[in-house]
Structure formats: structure tokens, C-alpha cells
């Protein structure tokens, strides 16, 4: 495979170029690579067996299981509602559309702890909605529905921000063409629209998963960190650090970080392989 420099790339020559390159590499080493490596080194300091033993503990398994469940639920909910919202925002014209689009990024603008607090105030036992929900036996705050809700809230913009521009860019032409060719709505969605936005959607979902695997602040407020019941992996790490169980904290952290990294890496390499075949970056 031949490597070509991207169009517009110009080589910065001489001393300045070398200084810049060194600075960038050093910054990356100091900021990202070295902390990550020290985490991995710490996790495996007492050997593979000690590392594995941590994941054999019931407490760790429960926490990881809960994190996984909450994450998958949040990813599924965001995928479905994200698609729905993106469709409404791009294909429908209604009052307040611009307002909603402006508010999409709100979850990024507020601290997750504040987000968690907002949810507890509304859905907690004394909350406006929480009170009536509790009377029909549905506990939201300090239980899994609240945790899924919190994860959805903090990751809401991720799927939307990925597919909105793609959906806008590809327009309705292909969908209209499919209609004139006799395709049903369902077929148009599955065979025309979804393939056109699949990478945006995949990215959005992967980012959602990565983000909610590592979510801490909102969950801390909403879930209350009840051991074995609402303790997720990040809350467990927090407790482990507090209790000077650094070995455990490092091991669980490595598991979380590695999962996120592999997911992102995987989706990117898959996209590259398929894009090379179809050249979808080109406007067809």
C-alpha cells in the first residue's frame, strides 16, 4: 500500500518542523501514553493470576455486569431515539425545531453531577414525577431505571450529532428514487436510508458505549452507590481507591479503558475497509 500525504498537507521544513514534531510527540507521551501504560503496569504488577483473581470476586462481577447492562440499555435507547429525533429534525418542519436542535448539546454543557441532581429532583421519592411513579411501584432514582436514564442523558448528543449531518447531506433524493421504483417505507429505511447513515450511527453507538462505560458523576448521584445493587464499575473503582485497594482499582480501570479503546479501534478499521471498497466519501 502506498502512503500519500492528504491533499493540502505541506511539509514544514527544517528546525521548526523538528521542534514541532518533538513537542507534539512529547505532549502525547506525557498526557496519554505514559499514564495509560502506568495503569496497565500497575494492574499486572502482581502477575496475571492476581489480575484474574480480582475479576473472580463477586463484587467486581456484579459491578461490571451492572455497568454492561446499563450501558447496553442506554446505547439501545439512544440509537432508537437518536434515529427518531434525527429523522424528525431533518425530514419534518415544525415550530421549535431550531430550539430543540440548539438544546441537543445541553447534556454536554452541564456537569454530569448536575445532570444526576436534576434527575433525582424530578424522579426521586420526593420528586414531582418520582412520587407518582413510586405509588405504582416503579422506583426510578437509586435503581436501574434511573441509572439508564442518567446514562441516556449524558450521552444523548452523541448519536444525534453523528447522524444529523449525514442525514442532511445525503438528502431525500435516494429515498425518493426508491419510492418511484416501488419500494415500501420499511424497505426504503432498511435498504436505502440506514446504509447511508450506518457509519454515523455505528460511531454514535460506540461513543455512547464508551462514554457510559466510564460515566461516574451522574450515576453517583442517581444510583447512590449501593453495594451489590447500584454499584457500577466506575463507582467500584471509586470505592477501591478510597479503601486503598489500588490493585483492584487499576485492574477494573484497565478493563473499562481497554473495552472502550478496542470498540473504537474496531469500528474505525471496519469503516476504513468498507470505505476503500465503496469510496463512500466521494459524492455519488
Amino acid at each position: 500500500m502506498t502512503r500519500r500525504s492528504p491533499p493540502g498537507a505541506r511539509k514544514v521544513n527544517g528546525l521548526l518542523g523538528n521542534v514541532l514534531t518533538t513537542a507534539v510527540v512529547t505532549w502525547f507521551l506525557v498526557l496519554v501514553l505514559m499514564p495509560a501504560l502506568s495503569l496497565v503496569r500497575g494492574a499486572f504488577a502482581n502477575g496475571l493470576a492476581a489480575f484474574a483473581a480480582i475479576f473472580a470476586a463477586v463484587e467486581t462481577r456484579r459491578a461490571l455486569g451492572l455497568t454492561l447492562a446499563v450501558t447496553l440499555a442506554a446505547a439501545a435507547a439512544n440509537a432508537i431515539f437518536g434515529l427518531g429525533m434525527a429523522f424528525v429534525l431533518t425530514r419534518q418542519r415544525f415550530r421549535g425545531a431550531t430550539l430543540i436542535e440548539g438544546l441537543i448539546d445541553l447534556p454536554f454543557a452541564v456537569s454530569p453531577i448536575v445532570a444526576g441532581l436534576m434527575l433525582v429532583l424530578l424522579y426521586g421519592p420526593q420528586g414531582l414525577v418520582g412520587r407518582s411513579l413510586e405509588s405504582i411501584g416503579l422506583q426510578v432514582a437509586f435503581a436501574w431505571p434511573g441509572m439508564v436514564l442518567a446514562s441516556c442523558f449524558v450521552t444523548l448528543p452523541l448519536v444525534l450529532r453523528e447522524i444529523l449531518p449525514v442525514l442532511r447531506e445525503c438528502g431525500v433524493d435516494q429515498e425518493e428514487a426508491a419510492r418511484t421504483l416501488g419500494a415500501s417505507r420499511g424497505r426504503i429505511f432498511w435498504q436505502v436510508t440506514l446504509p447511508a447513515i450506518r457509519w454515523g450511527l455505528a460511531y454514535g453507538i460506540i461513543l455512547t458505549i464508551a462514554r457510559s462505560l466510564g460515566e461516574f458523576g451522574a450515576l453517583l448521584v442517581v444510583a447512590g452507590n449501593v453495594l451489590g445493587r447500584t454499584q457500577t464499575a466506575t463507582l467500584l473503582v471509586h470505592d477501591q481507591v478510597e479503601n486503598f485497594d489500588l490493585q483492584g482499582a487499576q485492574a477494573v480501570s484497565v478493563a473499562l479503558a481497554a473495552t472502550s479503546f478496542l470498540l473504537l479501534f474496531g469500528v474505525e478499521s471496519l469503516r476504513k475497509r468498507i470505505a476503500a471498497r465503496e469510496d463512500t466519501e466521494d459524492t455519488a
Partner: protein
Amino acid sequence: MGISVRRLSKSFGAYHALDCVSFEVPEGQLVALLGPSGSGKSTILRIIAGLESADSGEVQLTGADAEAPTRNRGVGFVFQHYALFRHMTVRKNIAFGLEVRRPRPSRNELRRRVDELLNLVQLTGHADRYPSHLSGGQRQRVALARALAPRPKVLLLDEPFGALDARVREELRTWLRRLHDEAHVTSLFVTHDQQEAFEVADQIIVLNRGKIEQIGPPQELYERPASPFVTEFLGAVNLLRVETVLGMNVQYDEAPLPVEIPGPHGMAAIYVRPHDLDITRQADGRPAWRARIRRITPLGGLTRLDLTLHDGANLHVELTSDRVRALALNAGEDVFVAPRDLKVFHQPSPFVENYVI
């Protein structure tokens, strides 16, 4: 009757896109909807396809009311920007309209029909390519094949060559005409390019501001335009003042003007096509103006001359380059210029002086 459109009206808010439009496209003909942008031509096409709904009026396709949703109408639609499915190969794109059929055709049938169409649009070797690997002209041919695959009752083309460069455009035009002569699908295509309409269409429908100005075969429209708009839209034309025409220098025996011109205070729009003007060195008894040649622009087989009349009016004249050579014309010389044909529209509206289109 292939397509019949009756009293179609459509507004977008306060904007009247279509105002009571009626026309018919005879079975098997290729008809052009010609008009400037915003004249409502694309809206008509989209209403016929069911992609847009009309406020009032009706559409009939091959004699039956077209009230079915788009997917059951049996129209083939070709978009300006191709609208190919990017993630499908050429073969998959063409097969799409066949695969959605119930009952679904057999594999062999599908393959045979797609091969047939690939052959028709001369892309046999490109079946397994993706649209992004094709040129603009090739993409539009795939789009055409895709639209024709399910054997539509009518074919609708929305500025099909608008996004292509001039040379490819010309090629595709001739090619489309040939294709139509072979396939005979009733076709309606939208264009803002009069030359394109002339070259391809059996009939032309000229649209302006959501209304039909004139319908007819290309040559008839050109020779007998029904309105100033049609005259202006169908090619370059000189627009003259009444005074200019009355002020023609008539020498020897008074030869009559080719048309009746209203008095000096009448209102009229008088048009002369550049190639309907002839230049002579000497007055020859025909009504003629004295004029000075400002500029001579050779355009290959034709030569364009910019003249100024004695009253200051400008005229564009087109002569064959042979004729210009034979007369040995040079810029700055004084000559006689005589109209062979004038179009006069008596109308109350005033017009811009010395307006040359």
C-alpha cells in the same frame, strides 16, 4: 394518451408555483417542459410522480387516474443529481426496482433484465463498480437504466443533464433521443436549456411563472412564437422600438414592411432574430437601416456582428462566415441592414429601450 394533466395548481405559501396548468403528452412521445428556474416545471414532474401533491387538478397516466401512491404509479424518475444508491453496485442499483416487485422475479430473470439494461446504456463492463467510481455521464446512464428496469408506464426526467459538463451533455442528449426512438417510453423531461429541448423533444411546453405560454413542435414554436416571452426564451433576439422600425430608410420605390407596425405612438414589442437580418453594401430597394459595424466576432461557421443604427439602437446580426468574407466587411464600416422577418406583439406594456437579449 400517455400523460394527461388537467388544471393543476399548487402554491407554496404565498408563492404560486403552478396556476391551472393543463397539457397532454401523447403515448410514446418525448416532450420537454421548458422554462426558466422557478417556472414550476420541476413541480409538475414531482406531482406527476406523486412526490408532491397538487392543491387542485388531476393527473392521468395512460388513461387511468393517478391517485395511487408513488410506489404503485409505475413512473420512472431520473433526478438531476442521479440519486444513485451509493452503497450498491451498478448491478444492484439497476436491479432495485425489480427486486421490490411482488412476486419477485427469479434470479435468472433478474440477471437477464439487468444485463439487457446494462447493454442498453452501454455499461456492460461496469456492473460490479460502485457509483463513486463512475463519471457523471456514466452515473446518469445508470440512473436511467435503473428507472427503465421495471418497465415504467412513463419516464420523467428532471434536468437530467444539468449537472454534467457541456461535452458530455451533448453526447447524452443525442444518446437519449436514440434510446427513446428504440424504447418508445412516453417521456417528459424538464430543462431550462432551449437547445436541449430543441434537440431532443417531439414537442415543447414552454412554462413561465407557473403558466403555460405555448405548446408545440420545436420548429413551430421558433417560427410562430405566441408571446414575447417565448420569443425571448427560444434563443437570441433583438428587441426594437417602434420608432426605430418606422425610421427605416426606405429608398427607391417604397417596398412594404414585412409586417404591420402600429403608428409612432402605439405600443408594440418588435423582435428580430440575429440570423433574420441581412447586410448589404448597397441599398437594394428593400426597407433597410443604415448602420455602422462596431465589432465582428467570428464563431466558426457563423460570424456575429454588432451594429449601431443611426438612431443609436444596437443590433446583433448573425451571418455565415462565407457571407462576411464575400462582402469583405470590416469593423467601423457603414452598411445597410435589412430584416427578413419581424415578430410584432401588440401589447400595452412598455419595454426597455434598446434592449438586446
